[in-house]
């Protein structure tokens, strides 16, 4: 299980990379992609949309099921990774490279774990 030390994690298995004072990238963890299985569809928000802590901003679909993706931050969508719309499998292949959205004007962070805490959390879940 790959859990990079430079990222922060939500208990619903999203990762956050702080890229500036009020900006961050958000994606799905290795644990999440492994649990979800082969992803075949991603539904992303649009640039300019608001996201809020604890609210769903996207969903991903495997052949078996659809799953909501929750926001670890409150802010505004600055960019989406549109490549994923045609290649959702990138999330399975490279979960920390295949970011979903970039958020700007962040006003709030949810309860985030560091890599050590998230590792322990995943082991508990297994």
């Amino acid at each position: 299980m790959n859990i990079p030390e430079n990222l922060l994690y939500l208990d619903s298995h999203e990762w956050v990379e702080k890229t500036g004072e009020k900006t961050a990238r958000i994606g799905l963890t290795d644990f999440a992609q492994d649990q979800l299985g082969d992803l075949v569809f991603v539904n992303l928000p649009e640039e300019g949309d608001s996201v809020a802590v604890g609210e769903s901003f996207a969903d991903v679909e495997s052949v078996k099921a659809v799953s909501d993706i929750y926001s670890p931050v409150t802010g505004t969508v600055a960019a989406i990774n549109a490549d994923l719309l045609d290649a959702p499998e990138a999330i399975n292949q490279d979960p920390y490279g295949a970011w979903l959205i970039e958020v700007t004007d962040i006003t709030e962070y949810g309860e985030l774990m560091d890599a050590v805490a998230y590792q322990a959390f995943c082991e508990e879940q297994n």
Partner: protein
Amino acid sequence: MEKRTPLYERHVELGGRVVPFAGFLLPVQYKTGVIAEHMAVREHAGLFDVSHMGEAVLEGPDAEKNLNAILSNDFSGMPIGGARYTLMLNERGGVVDDLIVYRCGEERFFLVLNASNTEKDVNWLRGHLRGEATLEDISDRTAQIALQGPDAKAMITKFVPEEALPKKYYSFVEHVSVAGVDCMISRTGYTGEFGYELYMDPSGAAAVWDALYREGAVPCGLGARDTLRLEAAMPLYGHELDDETDPISAGLGFAVKLEKPNFIGKSALIARGEPVRVRVGLKVTRRGIIREHETVYAGETEVGKTTSGTHCPYLGAGYAMAYLDKASAAVGTQVEVSVRGRRIAAEVVPLPFYKRA
């Protein structure tokens, strides 16, 4: 408490994600993942543990007569070594189960039932048997392995001479030795692909599994089994079929012989007349995936409900099966499906979605 099939240890060793299904612990997928497993069946060969399926033997001088009275298909004159798909209907013309009947002898038939329906089916059959015929539930004494895919024949002929294999689709051969295990082998399957299903005593299942695995057959879980059957537009009980749905609406009229003197459900089917809603195939025309139990619209009018749907890996698009009002059921009809508050555009397309070349 769920039962373990005789191949449970294999599933765990192979990294299978084991879940409870129809009273058994079975893998949804192995490490390979649903898509790779699905593609292995379409392009090479996949190996499935389907030991959860129910099996029963009907025996006696009146066995054939009983099948003709209880089931929708016609079994008169069916040759020994032949297999036939049939519905078992209730008095309302709804479906108790869909099953395959194998003729092993003049007075001996082997029935393969859906796992979740086995107990119901056995009770139903026993409750309707007349004359000299007995039904024995042998599910616990029967393991089943499916080998499906274009390479299936090349793999199995490493163990069985080609002339000993069943040749025609829906035929079978008893007492064939595979890796030293006495098997019944049929040319049947639930994937839309060329392949075989092998029945054996549970004690021999691991040896057969290991032999075919070593030949390169890719272990496949329930996930791929479902995407494969959906891509081939094969009905699944509890989705396309249930106690209320009749087989004519389901497009299974080929397995219903209304010209037979009588069988359970016949008069109800005749009384129902032409179906109001029929089973159709839907293809997502742009992006998105349609799932089961979604409402289908033509404009703002509700015209039906989906019964199964997913992304079909080989065809590379979202497909679903649905029951639609006849007026909206013609191939080419444009519809919309409401999925989690969004409308997904879809088109009625011919069934099956996938047919092997």
